[in-house]
């Protein structure tokens, strides 16, 4: 469990102050996969670094697992009323694993020694370490690479080693900082699948930082969208995808959905999206209970209109379908109006992108 309250962090640079975190509050449930998305510079990396104190916030409070709240005053962490010592901070970090975009393995250590890194702190016997390392390598599917040096591994394999290393000390939380951003699509998919498996199997809380909505879509339960150091939107992934509120969220979602292409087509003035007078270009969005061809057909039939589909997509988020169609409605003005009404009645979200009934610029 992670509780973040009113975190603030300002970087003082020669070029001016950068407000990396502004009053950020989040609650991350134990055992969930929590995504934080934003463009670079949005403050998402700073946010995770504040969780394991690689960065100290200027003010605010953080609660990690069942630990006492850690409060920050002028960039100094306090716990139980006194200043946290370096040792206490190190101990806190050991409760969390972290993986990185560039893997950050030790190049001069074998896979075994990399994974064993955090186990070599006091109090573990050689055979205990040995057993644990082998267990972890089995977990990430790299048992046969135990003696190999990182430069002989692919990106995906390196990230697996990094995951094993991060899990070595049995943390309850795994922080992932753009862990798939340097990987090819296949490796990305397999790493995401591995993270999901670990989450289910070990019950580990995973905080994922990314700039790719596809990553959030693939494994996150909840998501926070960050912009300029603030959380602009937060919620469970399905509802964020189904009805995004903030502009930046919409932008992220359209980047992850084939329907997002329409914006490009519209701005390019493509042939595909030209509407004649009286026609309407619409975006229909289906949700959990409204996905299904028959609704569409019945509306078209009932209203006696035509629907010319330009783009269509249905996908599954947490086993719930989410889909949409972009198409041109044609027919008599009354029928089109009726059709739009029926869509509304069926709980299908309708967005008119271009209206040939009123737009003077549309060709006759």
């Amino acid at each position: 469990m992670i509780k973040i309250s009113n975190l603030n962090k300002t970087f003082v640079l020669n070029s001016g102050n950068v407000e990396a975190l502004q009053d950020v509050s989040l609650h991350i449930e134990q055992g969930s996969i929590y995504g934080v998305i934003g463009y670079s510079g949005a403050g998402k990396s700073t946010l995770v670094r504040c969780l394991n104190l690689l960065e100290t916030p200027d003010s605010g409070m953080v609660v990690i697992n069942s630990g006492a709240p850690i409060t920050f005053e002028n960039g100094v962490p306090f716990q139980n009323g006194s200043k946290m010592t370096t040792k206490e901070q190190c101990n806190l970090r050991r409760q969390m694993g972290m993986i990185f975009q560039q893997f950050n393995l030790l190049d001069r250590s074998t896979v075994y020694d990399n994974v064993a890194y955090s186990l070599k702190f006091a109090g573990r016997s050689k055979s205990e370490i040995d057993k644990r390392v082998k267990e972890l390598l089995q977990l990430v599917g790299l048992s046969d690479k135990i003696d190999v040096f990182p430069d002989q591994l692919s990106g995906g394999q390196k990230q697996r080693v990094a995951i094993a290393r991060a899990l070595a000390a049995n943390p309850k939380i795994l922080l992932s900082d753009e862990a798939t951003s340097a990987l090819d699509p296949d490796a990305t998919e397999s790493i995401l699948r591995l993270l999901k498996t670990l989450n289910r199997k070990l019950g580990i809380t995973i905080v994922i930082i990314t700039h790719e909505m596809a990553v959030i879509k693939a494994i996150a339960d909840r998501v926070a969208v960050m912009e300029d150091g603030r959380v602009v939107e937060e919620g469970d992934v399905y509802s964020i995808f189904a009805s995004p509120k903030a502009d930046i969220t919409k932008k992220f979602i359209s980047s992850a959905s084939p329907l997002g292409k329409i914006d490009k087509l519209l701005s390019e003035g493509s042939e595909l999206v030209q509407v004649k007078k009286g026609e309407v270009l619409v975006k229909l969005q289906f949700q959990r209970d409204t996905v299904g061809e028959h609704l569409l057909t019945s509306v078209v039939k009932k209203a006696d209109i035509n629907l010319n589909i330009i783009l269509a997509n249905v996908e599954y988020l947490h086993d719930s379908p989410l889909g949409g169609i972009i198409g041109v409605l044609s027919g008599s003005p009354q029928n089109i109006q009726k059709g739009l009404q029926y869509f509304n009645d069926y709980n299908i979200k309708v967005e008119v992108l271009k209206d040939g009934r009123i737009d003077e610029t549309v060709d006759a």
Partner: protein
Amino acid sequence: MDALMKQWTPNLYLYRDKFIQSLQATFEMFWKAGSIAFVIGLFFGILLVVTKKDGISKNRPVYQVTNLLINIFRSIPFVILLIFLIPFTRALMRTAIGVKGAIIPLVFGTVPFYTRQVEVALSSVAPGKIEAARAMGSGTWGIIFRVYLHEAVPELIRVTTVTAISLIGLTTMAGAVGAGGIGSFAINYGQNQYNQDIVNVCVVVLLIITFILQSFGTALARRTTNRSLFPKRRYGKDA
């Protein structure tokens, strides 16, 4: 061998005992001053990297004082340093001449250079590795020994080689305080007595030493890049 030497380098043959002595003196200065400078330079190099602005244990005063001292001693030409340090050497070693008197100035001449080299070598360790170690709960000492000094080994070998070669160069100047060595042998018995063959042999000997040091360093650096020198095999072994 004797006959060959007599024929090709008659003057060297005449002073062969002196030649062996001067080689020994060079060797003694090299390894004594070298090992002291190695330890001190490594220490200051680590100190600079750790206390610098983005270092793992930032400490502005320590960094600036160290940095200043190193810059000062780097700016003094070695021959000047030799004579400048005479009182200090005398106080510390009870003599300012001979091999014993040369060790202190050699250390002072080498440490600033080596410190800078170590600083550069350690700075080549990717910041991400440091961050990963911090995230795993390593403290300052853990990061120094398990990340910096571990990951920078090939670079450290390279800069140590460069420094060792420059130290050989410095020992040839130590003749100025009567330390002997191959440099003063070349001047006193070669140049000053018009024995060109002695000078030539000294050049060749120095070339060979440099060549051996460089080849050894390069090979060792290559063997330790992305590898440990003696990796353990664990595959198939059970605890």
